C-alpha cells in the first residue's frame, strides 16, 4: 500500500475532519502541480465536463459562376446539444498556407466567391468547439469556381454592364457586313452603361465579315473588335457589345421541283438540288384546281437539298402544278441590345 493509499484509508476510518484535511491537501497539491506545468485548474464548481469529439461527417462542393458552394453533411450525433462544423479552404491540398476558415457554426451550406480560383475545401466537427473530429476533405482534386458570367449579376451594377446597341448583319457581295447601331437605327450611336456610368458607343459598319459565321463584337474605345471566339475574360478596356450570327451567302440557286399527279393526288417529284444553300428552302405548290398538297426537302448537303418528301398528297390537282422555292439562306440572328435594354450586351451561352 502506498503512502497516499494509507493516508486515504486512515482518513476514511477517522472523522469527517480527517477526510476534509486529506482532500484539501490533495487539491492543493494538484493546484501546485498545475501551476508548475503552466496549466490553470478551475475550481471544482466551474470545472467543465470534457466532451468527446464527434466522428467526422462529410462535405461536398461544386463550383459555378465564380462561386464554390460547400454543402456539409453532419455525422450521426451521439451527444445531445449543438453540433458545430468548421469549414476551411485553401489553394494547397495540404492546407500548408493560404488557409481561410469560416467561424464555427451549425450552418450546412457555405458560399465561397472566388472567380477563376481552384480550391480545396475541408470541414471538421465538434460538440463544444474545443474537441474536434478529424478533417474531411471535400475532394482530392481542387474544385474550380469557374468564371463569373455577366448573366450571374444584375443589370447596371459595378460587376455588370448593359448596352443598348444593336448588332446585325447583311449580305454584301463576297462577304457580309456587320452593323452596330443604336435604338434609332443604323448610323446612330448606342448607349452603354457600366455600373453607374453611361457613355455613347459610335455606330459602325464592319465590312468583309465571313458569311454564316458567329462573331463576338466588342468596343475598346477606339475601334470595334470582331472575333469568332469569345475569350473567357475581355480585357478591361473592351466593352462587350453583342454577338451576331452572320447571314449566309447572298445569292443561292434555289432547287426546282417537278411534281407528278395521279388521280388528282401528288404522287411523286423530280428535283434539282440547287447550289449555295445554307438552309433548307420552303416550297409552295400552286395549281388552278388542287389544294392541300405539301412537300419538303429531306435535308441539305454540299449546298443543295438531298431529296423531296411529299408530306401531303392533296386532292383535285391538275396535271401541271407548279412549285416555287423560297429562302435557302441563313437569315442570321442579331445579338446585342434589346428595345428595352434589359440584358442588352450580355454575352452568355458561349
Amino acid at each position, binding site marked *: 500500500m502506498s503512502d497516499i493509499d494509507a493516508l486515504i484509508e486512515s482518513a476514511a476510518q477517522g472523522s469527517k475532519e480527517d477526510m476534509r484535511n486529506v482532500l484539501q491537501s490533495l487539491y492543493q497539491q494538484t493546484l501546485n502541480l498545475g501551476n508548475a506545468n503552466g496549466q490553470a485548474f478551475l475550481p471544482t464548481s466551474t470545472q467543465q465536463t470534457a466532451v468527446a469529439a464527434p466522428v467526422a461527417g462529410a462535405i461536398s462542393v461544386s463550383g459555378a459562376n465564380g462561386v464554390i458552394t460547400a454543402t456539409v453533411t453532419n455525422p450521426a450525433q451521439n451527444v445531445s446539444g449543438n453540433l458545430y462544423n468548421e469549414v476551411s479552404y485553401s489553394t494547397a491540398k495540404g492546407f500548408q498556407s493560404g488557409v481561410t476558415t469560416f467561424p464555427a457554426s451549425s450552418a450546412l451550406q457555405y458560399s465561397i466567391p472566388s472567380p477563376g480560383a481552384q480550391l480545396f475545401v475541408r470541414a471538421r466537427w465538434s460538440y463544444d468547439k474545443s474537441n474536434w473530429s478529424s478533417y474531411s476533405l471535400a475532394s482530392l482534386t481542387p474544385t474550380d469556381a469557374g468564371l463569373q458570367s455577366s448573366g450571374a449579376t444584375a443589370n447596371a451594377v459595378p460587376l455588370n454592364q448593359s448596352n443598348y446597341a444593336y448588332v446585325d448583319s447583311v449580305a454584301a457581295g463576297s*462577304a457580309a457586313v456587320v452593323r452596330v447601331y443604336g435604338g434609332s437605327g443604323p448610323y446612330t450611336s448606342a448607349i452603354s452603361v457600366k455600373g453607374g456610368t453611361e457613355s455613347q458607343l*459610335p*455606330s459602325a459598319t*464592319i465590312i468583309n465579315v465571313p458569311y454564316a459565321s458567329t462573331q463576338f463584337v466588342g468596343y475598346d474605345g477606339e475601334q470595334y473588335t470582331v*472575333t469568332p471566339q469569345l475569350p473567357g475574360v475581355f480585357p478591361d478596356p473592351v466593352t462587350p457589345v453583342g454577338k451576331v450570327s452572320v447571314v449566309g451567302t447572298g445569292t443561292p440557286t434555289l432547287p426546282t421541283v417537278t411534281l407528278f399527279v395521279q388521280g388528282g393526288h401528288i404522287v411523286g417529284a423530280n428535283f434539282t438540288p440547287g447550289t449555295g444553300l445554307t438552309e433548307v428552302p420552303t416550297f409552295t405548290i400552286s395549281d388552278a384546281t388542287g389544294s392541300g398538297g405539301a412537300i419538303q426537302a429531306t435535308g441539305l448537303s454540299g449546298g443543295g437539298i438531298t431529296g423531296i418528301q411529299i408530306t401531303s398528297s392533296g386532292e383535285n390537282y391538275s396535271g401541271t402544278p407548279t412549285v416555287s422555292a423560297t429562302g435557302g439562306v441563313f437569315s442570321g440572328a442579331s445579338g446585342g441590345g434589346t428595345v428595352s435594354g434589359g440584358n442588352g450586351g450580355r454575352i452568355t451561352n458561349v
Partner: protein
Amino acid sequence: MVRHYLHKARGMYVAHLEHKETGSEHKLQIMVGKEACPHCGHVTPKNNLGEFDPNKLHIAEIKQLNEDDRRMSAWASHHKVPIHKARK
C-alpha cells in the same frame, strides 16, 4: 473628318468618321485579315480585298451619315425640338 489607319495586329482597317458640328461619329472597319493565329498572333491577310476602295467607302458612309443628320434636323425643325450640342 476622316481619321484612318490599319491595325495590323487585329487585321482591321479602321476609319473614324466624325462630323465636327453635329458630333455624329461612325466607325468604318474592314476586316483585311483572317483570324489571328492563336499561338503566335500572326494575322493572315485575306485574298478578296481587291474590290474594297477605302476612299469610295468613306464617301458612301459619309453620305449616309449626312443623310441621317439631315433627316433628324428636319424632324427637329418640324416639331420645334431644340438640338443638343455634342459633348466633346
